[in-house]
């Protein structure tokens, strides 16, 4: 893979004439790295400075790295993300222990100066190319005794200068490419950190998506509630009034009115169920506790409900809890042949724990039952967990743990 990248880089730079904008961008970029390496070079040549420079570089790895990142971004358009800040209670010592610091230190102390050396060479070659290729232009300034005034020599030097001028953009491009790679490897996040960041981004975007879906459900619910449901109620009321008032209409007409009235009432009930399935208004207005007692009351079997909530719960999590209890009770009514269900909902720390237990026949298998799989997926959508304890013969206990806040 690096070889193809390299080849592509070579092809690109060979196509690049020395007067092109890219050639100057590469050169400008690598040249800007030279001053930063000067202290290290001095330290290497002057051993008295070594300790001081080492100390400065090691304590200033972060600002130095930031400066390098700034150079990459502003002069080369490459964004090297900073590594994740490590948790270091003991600031300096803690930072020194971190691997990322050593990667950065390696960059500032070894790789950076070497790259800068390369960059200095390239800059030097540019200069040489300029000087040599223009030898005809200035050689007359030199004393006549100099061999440079011989035209075969001048021709050779010019040819050499032109060759250097052709080679320099190529070398500058190569040096820039090496710099970018080195910076990405040593100054950017390593693989584990990249993955960690990615996971965080994905988790964030998923939470956003879940919230967006929830908000959309609520909007639809509100629209139905304030619009269609009111109209239907009004219609049914008028039909009911007609049914009550028109005593002397032909029986077939009354029949039509009665049917229409009953249809309208059935439609209200259906719409109500639909709205409840989307997002119950009571959940938003009165909270989880009130909404849960509504489900428990509508359940076709006796439900004992115990809700104890402390602290804030994210609306999305409330919705997940609501639908989990609702679906779990439907499941129990369908399969468990239970006489009684106990639902306990409480917050413990920053978790919301739902326990739904019935005295039914048991044997619920979360790996097969689609209902339970759906519940598990719902819990997982907010990073929650679901566990089922259901021996054959019962009883069944479903425990769901959700984070209170996303």
């Amino acid at each position, binding site marked *: 893979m690096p070889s193809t990248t390299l080849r592509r880089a070579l092809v690109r730079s060979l196509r690049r004439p020395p007067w092109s904008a890219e050639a100057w961008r590469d050169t400008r970029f690598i040249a800007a790295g030279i001053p930063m390496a000067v202290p290290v070079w001095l330290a290497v040549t002057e051993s008295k400075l070594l300790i001081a420079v080492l100390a400065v570089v090691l304590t200033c790895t972060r600002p130095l790295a930031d400066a390098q990142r700034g150079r990459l971004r502003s002069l080369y358009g490459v964004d090297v993300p900073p590594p994740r800040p490590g948790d270091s209670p003991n600031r300096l010592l803690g930072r020194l222990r971190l691997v990322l610091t050593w990667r950065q230190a390696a960059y500032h102390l070894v790789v950076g100066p070497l790259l800068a050396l390369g960059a200095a060479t390239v800059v030097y070659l540019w200069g040489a190319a300029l000087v040599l290729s223009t030898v005809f232009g200035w050689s007359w300034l030199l004393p006549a005794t100099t061999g440079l005034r011989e035209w075969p020599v001048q021709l050779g030097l010019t040819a050499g200068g032109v060759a250097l001028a052709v080679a320099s953009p190529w070398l500058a491009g190569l040096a820039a490419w090496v710099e970018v790679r080195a910076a990405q490897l040593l100054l950017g996040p390593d693989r584990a950190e990249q993955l960690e960041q990615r996971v965080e981004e994905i988790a964030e975007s998923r939470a956003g998506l879940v919230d967006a879906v929830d908000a959309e459900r609520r909007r639809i619910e509100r629209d139905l509630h304030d619009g269609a449901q009111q109209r239907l109620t009004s219609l049914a009321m008028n039909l009911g009034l007609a049914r009550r008032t028109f005593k002397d209409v032909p029986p077939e007409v009354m029949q039509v009115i009665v049917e229409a009235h009953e249809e309208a009432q059935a439609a209200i009930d259906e719409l109500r169920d639909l709205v409840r399935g989307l997002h119950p208004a*009571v959940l938003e*207005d009165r909270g989880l506790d009130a909404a849960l007692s509504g489900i428990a009351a*509508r359940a076709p079997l006796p439900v004992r409900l*115990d809700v104890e909530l402390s602290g804030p719960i994210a609306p999305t999590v409330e919705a997940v809890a609501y639908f989990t209890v609702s679906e779990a009770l439907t499941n129990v009514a369908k399969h468990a042949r239970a006489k009684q269900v106990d639902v306990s909902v409480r917050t413990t720390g920053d978790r919301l724990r739902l326990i739904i237990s019935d005295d039914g026949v048991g044997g619920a298998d979360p790996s097969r039952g689609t209902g339970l799989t759906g519940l598990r997926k719902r819990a997982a959508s907010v990073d929650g967990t679901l566990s089922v304890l259901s021996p054959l013969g019962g009883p069944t206990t479903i425990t769901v743990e959700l984070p209170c806040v996303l």
Partner: protein
Amino acid sequence: MRAVIAEDSVLLRVGLVKVLEAVGYEVVAAVGDAEELLAAVEEHRPGVVVADVRMPPGFSDEGVKAAMVIRRQWPEVAVLLLSQYVEERYAADLLATNTSGVGYLLKQRVANVDDFVDALQRVADGGTALDPEVVAQLLVRRHRDPLEKLTPRERDVLALMAEGRSNAAIAASLVVSDSAVAKHINSIFTKLDLPPADDSHRRVMAVLRFLEVG
């Protein structure tokens, strides 16, 4: 009887006016929010108020709050609350002020005009009318102690009592005789430890006991 209606949805408000007038009420005011409602009650002193729970500006429980003010300041005015959904705490709040002449129904019940008028009449006559869904919710709330002693049949009877039904209506709905209902009710009074006194008062007490447990 004179009535005041408070409902922010124009469609329903007009419908309610029509229904009430059709069954012989005189609608003296039909308003859209709680403040106007209180002003209308102050001005007209109606026999009964029909009010939506959710009203502007907050769209939360303005109706309940207004109802409590009305029950405190003008105890002779009966109040029937309509709600989009059941919230038993509204019922509990409402009944905490006074147990007679109050009602709490799901909004959709107005579609069944006969039932609605029936409930309204009960409330206007100083009785109670609780929506069956409210009663069902009250039943699931951690009832331990006294209510645990009731038999399922007695709980059914108590639930219907809480809705505000008469003995005859309870008997009809459970398909039993009036005397059987009376027997159940007596047994409920005994189990809930309610002293023999004015019978209708004890009914209210039983319903209250029901609410308190929640």
